[in-house]
């Protein structure tokens, strides 16, 4: 038997003119956790999809446990003992957990028998790896962290000895991510080989035994994790030295541009989503909002940009006043110089089916420079798009490509370009770098700081604590719809924020935020 679970030799794959994988060689030792890092579009997911039979490689050979294996489809992969936890879960939402697990691996024609057989087997898996889920719950009623467990159990139930996870922590809270890592370690201890794709270097350092770095479709290096560092990996990923810590001068604040007063929100089912929020953001500063996702940050952002109406309180944002009885429509707010970079770029930021040039004017589509008497001025829109693409280094620099076909980072840059090019007075930014590669993150961070230095008030909601600490001047922490603390970004660290986000910190100086 071979020492290696997986051996890839000279794997190449191209989509049309794009070479997604080029002569990839990779060896993964049995019973280890192996990380694959790289920027978005570096070819990580393609490579793993080849291994799981979703794509077929143009050339190259795959060896599984030392044996040459042809993987034409998922069935072949499953037979070879490979399981995959996809980035976008492959679950049937209105099925129960159990039904999802047995789907395709039923033990017979009649369901009730399969279910009986499966239940005890799954209980064993649960026990040995700490993978607890409610088997009878419907998928759409359980949180994403649980859904991911279902995906994992699905793979193990099919007898996977090699488990591939594609960006598993993107959707998880820090706690859920920790639990996942515990599970993965347990799997490793019992002999499963784990391959994890990520672009979060911290996870690589914490979890893996060895790591491969991909760049532009090639593996640039494979290293022992213990013998490398975040900095080295980052450099390998982008192919140049990057600063992990951004330099920025201290804030020169001006007039108050956002003034939130006793803001509250009760949703349609009567649950208090936001309660008694009070804070200000001045011109020339970046205020970060920290919080475990789902604690009201998204709602706050949506109220400020006019998407959601608030239930009580009063907001003054630039020259606009928002109260429960006096709602202002999002387009009015936008035209008053308040730009909004939404958290979910594919749902709210742009229209995936539209061309880049069309997406580049969304929200400003009524502006006279884009419109003739009866028709839109296509040329003006295209040249506008090309110019902002240049400014923000959006690649490829082609205004006619569908928005959906840009990588995440470039979509985000396009949205930021659209919102920032008018030098807004207030910039509301949600998750500016979610799913964005390191090179683009650096660029986006610089742009946001530039906006601040030009005198904009920036409100930043982000799930990445290091991002909040790097960018913000002040950080407000939310928990359960309330503000539970505020810290100076220069004087805090991830640990303190983490405690505050879970509301387990001690109130400082007798300050009460209730």
């Amino acid at each position, binding site marked *: 038997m071979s020492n290696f679970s997986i051996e890839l030799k000279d794997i190449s794959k191209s*989509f049309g003119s794009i070479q997604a994988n080029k002569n990839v060689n990779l060896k993964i030792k049995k019973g280890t956790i192996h990380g694959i890092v790289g920027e978005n579009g570096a070819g990580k997911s393609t490579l793993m999809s080849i291994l*799981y039979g*979703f*794509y077929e490689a143009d050339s190259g050979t795959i060896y599984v446990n030392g044996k040459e294996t042809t993987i034409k*489809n*998922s*069935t072949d*992969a*499953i037979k070879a003992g490979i399981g*995959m936890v*996809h980035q976008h879960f*492959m*679950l*049937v*939402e*209105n*099925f129960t957990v159990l*039904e*999802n697990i*047995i*789907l*395709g*691996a*039923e033990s*017979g*024609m*009649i*369901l*009730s028998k*399969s279910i009986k057989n499966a239940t005890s087997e799954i209980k064993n898996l649960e026990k040995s790896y700490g993978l607890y889920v409610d088997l009878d719950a419907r998928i759409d009623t359980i949180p994403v962290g649980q859904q991911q467990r279902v995906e994992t159990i*699905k793979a193990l139930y099919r007898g996977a000895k090699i488990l591939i996870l594609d960006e598993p922590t993107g959707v998880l809270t820090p706690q859920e991510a920790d639990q996942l890592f515990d599970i993965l370690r347990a799997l490793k201890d019992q002999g499963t080989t784990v391959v994890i794709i990520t672009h979060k270097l911290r996870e690589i350092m914490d979890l893996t035994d060895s790591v491969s770095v991909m760049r532009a479709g090639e593996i640039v290096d494979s290293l022992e994790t213990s013998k490398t560092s975040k900095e080295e990996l980052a450099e390998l990923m982008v192919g140049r030295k990057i600063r992990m810590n951004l330099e920025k001068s201290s804030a020169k604040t001006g007039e108050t541009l956002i003034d939130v007063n006793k803001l509250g929100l009760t949703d349609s089912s009567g649950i208090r989503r936001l309660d008694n929020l009070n804070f200000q953001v001045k011109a020339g500063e970046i205020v970060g909002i920290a919080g475990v996702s789902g604690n009201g940050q998204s709602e706050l952002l949506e109220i400020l940009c006019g998407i959601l109406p608030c239930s009580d309180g009063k907001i003054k944002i630039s020259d606009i006043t928002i109260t429960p009885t006096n709602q202002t429509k999002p387009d009015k707010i936008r035209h008053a110089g308040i730009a909004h970079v939404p958290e979910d770029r594919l749902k709210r930021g742009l229209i995936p089916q539209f061309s880049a040039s069309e997406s580049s004017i969304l929200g400003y589509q009524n502006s006279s420079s884009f419109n003739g008497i009866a028709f839109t001025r296509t040329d003006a829109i295209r040249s506008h798009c090309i110019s902002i693409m240049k400014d923000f280094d959006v690649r490829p620099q082609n205004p006619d490509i569908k928005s959906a076909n840009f990588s995440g980072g470039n979509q985000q840059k396009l949205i930021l370009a659209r919102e920032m090019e008018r030098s807004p007075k207030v910039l509301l930014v949600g998750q500016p770098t979610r799913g964005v590669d390191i090179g683009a993150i650096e660029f986006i961070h610089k742009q946001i700081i530039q906006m601040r230095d030009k005198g904009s008030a920036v409100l930043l909601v982000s799930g990445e604590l290091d991002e909040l600490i790097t960018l913000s001047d002040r950080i407000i922490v939310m928990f359960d719809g309330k503000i539970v603390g505020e810290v100076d970004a220069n004087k805090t660290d991830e640990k303190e924020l983490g405690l505050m986000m879970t509301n387990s910190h001690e109130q400082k100086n007798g300050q009460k935020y209730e």
Partner: protein
Amino acid sequence: MEFALNDILSILAATIRLSTPLIFAAMAGIFSERSGVVDISLEGKLLAGAFAAASMAAYTGSAWLGLGAAIITGMILSLIHGFASITHKGDQVVSGVAINIIVSGLTVVLGMAWFHRSGQTPTLTSDSRFMPIQLPGVDAISNIPFIGEIYSKLISGHNLLVYIAFASVAFTYWVLFKTRFGLRLRAVGENPKAVDTAGISVSFLRYRAILIGGILTGIGGTYISIAQNASFIKDMSAGQGYIALAAMIFGKWKPVPAMFSCFLFGFLEALSMRMQGVVIPYIGEVPVQFIQAAPYILTVVLLAGFVGRAIAPKADGIPYVKER
């Protein structure tokens, strides 16, 4: 009193007879749409089945061969629909409408070519049709008041295909919810990617689902031409495929509720026949046109307002494309 019971029983018996083709088509629709293939061609398949059954029965004199011909015809049309919309990932509605139009024209043309009767098939004798059958024990209990009458007038005395229609509802339920095939079929209509990554062929599953639909519509078509009627007449399915589609949606893609909504549409149809010329107190005689339109008006009203949120299978109508 006795007169009233008789009246009700005869309307209900008519309801069952009129619902039968709807039930076949609705079950066919459930198989197809639960697997993610929108099937607007139910109408065309019913009509084609009706024509095939009537032609074969007229030619051979055998109702059973007629049924066989209709089933094969339904399956062939399903394969065409599948070839366009599963294999080649074409638009399912366009493919379905195309089938409806082709069938509507082709049945008339073939009918003229084969039987020289302006698109009709010859009138069949009763031994080449499916005739009403008496269930066992009818004579014994028909004299018992009420129960006996219900048994002899409502439950007994239909042709075999009516009973098969009821069996098809149970069959559909069992297959969908109690078998491995059903689990996979429902999954493929919700999230074909999940099925694909579980190592099951999406296309093969969908083909099997629509083939079952073809069989069921074939039987439904047979019922229309050689059980309910005695010959094929141009466009005799008369929108029943569409009504069945509505009933299926009204029944939220579930076999038993869909059967009941078929009953509802059948009942309205039966009522409208009965109500023609009847003078209703205070209102007077309701115009025939209005009564005939009632089922269709109801369709719109029900679908617009009373269904609640009819949640279709998520991948319904979306061809599965694996690679970008």
